[in-house]
């Protein structure tokens, strides 16, 4: 289905300022990129489309020297290069504006702007330069404020000004519109167009086809780490791009009406009513959110980075720490967070310790290690966790086996509510299937399951109902991938 990029027309003969060919990259057991291609032509805007987890950011991080590819080639102006660090990318005048900004919060705007240079730092001159770039972008940046005191839009403008200040020829923007209001986003797109018209080459990571269409000359679609479509934007219709992003339609997993009716009369297990809350660390927000979880249903949650879904899942898992009348939850909750090594396991400890980790706060007295060993062994058998013994270090297990152990630990006490955040991510088909099967079994045993996934196919086939988070608000959504995809980007 891949379409070769046409390098004909006006720029024929000119070497591409950035060309990535056959790039593969694996993080642990997770394949992020699988022979991906991306060619950025001079003086153009090139949209890089794809769903969450498609590998867009990984590919561009390779172009920016942050990550080293396992294989594949990178060419700058037609010459093969190795970029071992962002510093080397910057030397080739490639700059990147990250989705999670990389500004230093306690340096002032102008200091951030000038960071990375050499010699004397002339504050006056740098301020003047910053102002000039700001003006060119049509905005105002106070040179003496610190990013900590700036809005997301201001921080992003500063990041762009910083990239321009380095006189970059290649500018990579990672989901720049995600943090902006619609008006700001439109202004940004105009700026991007103006930059390209002035001769820069811009790679724009986005999941919004409209944004891509508004500015891009070329488009590349990544799915599951592969380049599935690439070509001139005007030659592609939305339907083609949408299909490329989402992949072949699989069966919609039709559920009988009887089941849904039964769910709706089942008792309510957990409920959130008109909750407005903010995570002080990530600034992720929920605005006036209400939802209910019944016994015996799988409730799917979808949302893009920053939409509020992370906070929503933590509230439902009782891990957010706010006590509020707006939240009612059962006592026994199983929680499977996405970042396993950070939140769910102690990688340096053995399997027994990791099983005993659950609710360690509630126990007193002596640790019945023999029981924990037996319990761990039983869970290993029941959930098919492949490890040499209950005393093997967690670190030595593959991702799939670690995940199965976490699942075993969280589900074995038959909790009435299960919150699973992208539990099959990065697992092979068999491991992922086993985990989905476990969640279905829990549902038939009367548990309520909250299931977040970046794989919309999986979500649509597993969930009985789906809520989509967008900009802190949460809405029910129809059980089709297209509907979810549209709701995730805020389209009605």
């Amino acid at each position: 289905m891949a379409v070769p990029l046409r390098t004909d027309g006006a720029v024929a003969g000119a070497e591409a300022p950035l060309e990535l060919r056959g790039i593969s990259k694996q993080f642990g057991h997770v394949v992020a990129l699988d022979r991906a291609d991306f060619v950025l032509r001079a003086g153009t805007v090139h949209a890089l489309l794809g769903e969450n987890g498609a590998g867009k950011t990984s590919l561009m991080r390779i172009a920016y020297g942050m990550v080293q590819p396992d294989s594949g080639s990178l060419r700058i102006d037609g010459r093969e290069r190795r970029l071992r660090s962002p510093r080397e990318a910057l030397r080739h005048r490639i700059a990147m504006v990250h989705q999670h900004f990389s500004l230093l919060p306690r340096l002032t705007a102008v200091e951030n702007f000038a960071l990375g240079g050499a010699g004397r730092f002339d504050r006056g001159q740098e301020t003047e330069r910053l102002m000039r770039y700001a003006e060119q972008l049509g905005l105002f940046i106070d040179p003496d404020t610190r990013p900590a005191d700036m809005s997301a839009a201001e921080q992003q403008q500063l990041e762009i000004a910083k990239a321009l200040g380095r006189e970059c020829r290649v500018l990579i923007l990672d989901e720049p519109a995600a943090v902006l209001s619609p008006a700001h986003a439109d202004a940004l797109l105009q700026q991007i167009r103006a930059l390209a018209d002035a001769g820069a080459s811009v790679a724009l990571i986005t999941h919004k086809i409209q944004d891509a269409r508004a500015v891009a000359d070329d488009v590349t679609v990544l799915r599951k780490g592969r380049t599935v479509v690439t070509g001139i934007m005007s030659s592609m219709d939305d339907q083609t791009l949408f299909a490329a992003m989402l992949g072949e339609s699989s069966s919609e997993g039709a559920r009988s009406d009887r089941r849904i009716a039964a769910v709706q009369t089942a008792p309510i297990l957990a409920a959130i009513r008109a909750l407005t809350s903010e995570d002080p660390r990530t600034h992720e927000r929920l605005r006036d959110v209400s939802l209910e979880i019944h016994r015996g249903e799988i409730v799917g949650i979808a949302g893009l980075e920053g939409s509020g879904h992370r906070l929503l899942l933590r509230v439902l898992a009782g891990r957010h720490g706010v006590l509020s009348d707006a939240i009612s939850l059962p006592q026994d909750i199983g929680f499977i967070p996405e970042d396993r090594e950070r939140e769910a396991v102690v990688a340096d400890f053995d399997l027994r310790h990791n099983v005993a980790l659950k609710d360690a706060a509630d126990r007193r007295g002596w640790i019945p290690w023999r029981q924990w060993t037996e319990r761990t062994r039983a869970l290993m058998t029941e959930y098919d966790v492949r490890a040499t013994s209950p005393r093997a270090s967690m670190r030595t297990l593959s991702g799939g086996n670690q995940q199965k152990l976490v699942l075993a630990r969280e589900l074995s006490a038959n909790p009435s509510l299960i919150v699973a955040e992208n539990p099959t991510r990065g697992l092979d088909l068999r491991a992922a299937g086993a985990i989905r099967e476990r969640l279905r079994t829990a549902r038939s045993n009367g548990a309520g399951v909250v299931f977040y996934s970046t794989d919309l196919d999986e979500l649509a086939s597993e969930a009985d109902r789906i809520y989509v988070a967008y900009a802190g608000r949460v809405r029910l959504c129809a059980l089709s991938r297209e509907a979810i995809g549209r709701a995730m980007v805020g389209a009605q």
Partner: protein
Amino acid sequence: MDWVTALLEATVRAATPLALAALGELLIERGGQINIGLEGSVLAGALGAAIVAEPLGAHAGLLGGAAAGALIGALFAVFTIALRTDQIITGTALTLLVLGTTGALARTLFSERGIALTLPMLPVNPIPGLQSIPVLGPALFAQPYIAYFAVLLAIGIHWWLTRTHAGLALRAVGESRENARVAGIQVDRVQWAAVLVGSLLAGISGAVLVLAQSGTFVEGMSAGRGFIAIAIVALGRWRPLPVLLAALLFGATTAAQYTAQTFGWTMPYQVFLAAPYLATLIVLFLSARRLSPASLSQRGPSLA
């Protein structure tokens, strides 16, 4: 000389090595490291100064001290930056190492002669004109040049941190190694440089103890000044000029103790001596994490 002049003179004299070591530690901490081994650099600097000054004179002694301090800093950097060992344990071990090594070396080098070691000292360099100001003149402007150097150094570091790209890079690394790397900064190299230069200054600090104060080398003569420097940096809230003032405060309490003894005052002088540490604790409490470089208290890999 009345007691005010004596007190001021002694304050500046006591504060000079403290200020040098503290400015060194400031550079290291602004780059996101904490070097408990600074005490080792100060002591190594003292011995290095003694060894070099005996044949070559006091000015060369300063260089010897600087080199010895930097050598210990290089060890710290090899362990904490290249091998990623824990900073606290590494610094502690290095301090112990220097205490032991300098003690043994000093005995084999100096003590067999049977007479106390007497070393050439740095002369006093009065500033013409200023030194004749009543009371203040003889106290502040009749010091060895290294005292004026410490003041200029503080101003210089302030300028360097705010007005050079290298200074910006150091502060960026101190806030976030990862973000600094993304901004194109060679993080390890920056931290290496900060540790080397900071330890070099600590070495000079040790040299000053030998060449401007005691005129000899005594085992363990750094007497915790490397640790005091860490306190001074916190009290000065990680800024060069306040750090200079904080060093003067710590110097003043030492000076007050001697002055009190000289002039026969009776009081529990320990109150004076403990006061700056309590003041530092209060500053830490008031400023908490707000002012310290953000990555300072982030721990390395687990130790068990």
